[in-house]
């Protein structure tokens, strides 16, 4: 099914059905967040990849 057709089909669902999808999307977002794949905010103290690489080079 083409993307526009799928969008139209999803948009034509009842509000109750859409809410069920929305709940599933939210559960998925929460599961991804809980898996620790995202940092909530950038850690300024953390060295960048480049800095870490340079440090490892020095210790060799």
């Amino acid at each position, binding site marked *: 099914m083409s993307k526009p057709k799928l*969008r139209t089909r999803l948009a034509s669902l009842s*509000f109750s059905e859409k*809410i069920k999808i929305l*709940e599933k999307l*939210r559960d998925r977002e929460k599961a991804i967040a809980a898996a620790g794949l995202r940092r909530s905010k950038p850690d300024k103290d953390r060295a960048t990849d480049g800095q870490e690489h340079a440090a490892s080079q020095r210790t060799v």
Partner: protein
Amino acid sequence: MVHKQFLREAAEVTASRNFPLPLGTRPDLVDNHSVKATLEAINQMQADGVIGAYAIGGAVGATFYLEPAATVDLDLFITIPGESSGLVSLSPIYEHLKARGGKVQDEYIVIGEWPVQFLLAADGLELEAIACAVETDVEDVPTRVISAEHLVAIALRVGRLKDHNRILQFLDQEGVDREKLQKILERHGLTSKWQDFERRYLEGTR
């Protein structure tokens, strides 16, 4: 039913004594993981006179008209009964929900699993949006959703990137009545903002 009624009454008594029930025995909001249950709690709050009219806005509101899009919260535009002065406190809402197991989290109150942001209708556009909201239901729980045209007007006024994106979705999916939208924009002084939006995003697409 009797059990539910008992729990509700018990909660009212303990709330009035400022003595919270232990977690797991609180009524209404326990094991509430769905939007349906959250709306039931909100409808109860309306029946109890804590809030006046309400209508769902934001991404959940837009979902009524468009394809579902991931969101973490429920935006609720509300009026407060008998409110006439400029200074209005949302604390009665927070107290009411806290007594029923709701938890305050930043600008939200978490009702069951859903963080709800109560947005007090502060001007003509928002009051009109509540008044013109569309009646619907979520699994037989009655509720109201802001009209597509009012959602677009509010999104235009807020003007963040995600709001502009939502407007584009509405236009792309032909989810708004352009004539109705134009009248709303004129009534609330948003015409020049709309022209800016058109210049920025729609030039060359018509």
